[in-house]
């Protein structure tokens, strides 16, 4: 795995809707900008070699880093694969839609649900939103949220951004009735 740079983003929301948020709502993202393992190879039918070489390593790099950046127990989480313009969406999906990638985060966060994801192809500086859901019950409505990310010079055409996001709580000022009240 060739990593060009690591980006860490931490958002703390201290006011929302004109009211204080206390404690501040905290969301962290760690992203690795890596070389596309299938760079320059044309259409590769079997992606398993690149998955084996990269997916677990990038998951092992990002999972502890995003939890350290959050500095709190994660209650919601999500992931992203943003593919440079020379690659296929399938390349990004190959690296994040495997237990080899996500289990690093699930184990470290004591989580059980599948990670919600964004997969997107774009130029350097493309804006993307990472969806987050509750780590043990994806129906918990208070924790449905997303966070916007932009890295000004990534991904290059032959790169991928692989990212994990973690939130210490649900939405600030969350006050929707539980899903069960509508069933």
């Amino acid at each position: 795995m060739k990593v060009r740079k690591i980006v860490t983003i931490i958002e703390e929301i201290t006011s929302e809707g004109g009211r204080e948020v206390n404690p501040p709502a905290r969301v962290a993202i760690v992203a690795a900008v890596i070389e596309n393992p299938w760079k320059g190879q044309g259409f590769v039918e079997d992606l398993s070699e690149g998955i084996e070489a990269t997916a677990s390593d990038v998951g092992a790099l990002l999972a502890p880093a995003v939890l350290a950046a959050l500095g709190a127990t994660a209650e919601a989480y999500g992931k992203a694969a943003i593919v440079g313009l020379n690659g296929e969406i399938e390349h990004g999906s190959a690296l994040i839609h495997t237990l080899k990638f996500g289990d690093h985060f699930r184990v470290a966060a004591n989580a059980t649900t599948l990670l919600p994801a964004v997969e997107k192809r774009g130029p350097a500086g493309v804006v993307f939103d990472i969806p987050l859901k509750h780590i043990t019950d994806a129906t918990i409505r208070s924790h449905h949220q997303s966070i916007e990310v932009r890295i000004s010079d990534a991904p290059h055409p032959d790169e991928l951004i692989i990212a994990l996001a973690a939130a210490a709580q649900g939405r600030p000022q969350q006050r929707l009735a539980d899903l069960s009240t509508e069933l």
Partner: protein
Amino acid sequence: MTRPSSSDAGVRKLVLYREEVLNENGSRPERPALRATVAAVIHNPWLGTGPAADLSAAAEAIAPQLAKMLTDRLIADLGGAEAIEAFGKAAIVGTAGEIEHGGALIHTPYFGNLMRDFLQGESIICFADARAEAGETLVVPMWHKSAAATRSHYQTIAARISDGPRADEIVIIAAASTGPRPHARIGDRKTDPIIRAKDLESALA
């Protein structure tokens, strides 16, 4: 209906962006630097005041708090004030404010002198400013904190808050780096030959 305002709680949000370049143009920099911005989204305290309004009282009240908050985060996330080698600052003013409002918060001693003290620097702090809609990217310049003309440390970092500033807000940004550009190799004032326009007549012809 009145729109929710950040004024009720001061700072609406605080955002850290940090990056570490491990590889540039195929090889690892000799000193991989951490670069970061910390941005606070605040309510514009001068909304509705005219162009003759005295900005000093609010600036003296607010700017020191911002300098402390932003530099505390930079110091915590970059490994200490001693590790920081370059710095910069910026303001993005929402569309209902004046550029002068941003300037009042970053260009007076109540912000700049404190930021310099907290980061243990001596240089004037370089800056960028803009009046913009939420989500605008502003490129923030940095230079060496104690020897501003150190060419290896001329660098920038992009800052952007997806939902700020609202029209009635200001984003105040402090930026810092723990080292030079990756593969810095364009000399320095100490090594430059003396170059004058008349020496370059052939190149300019």
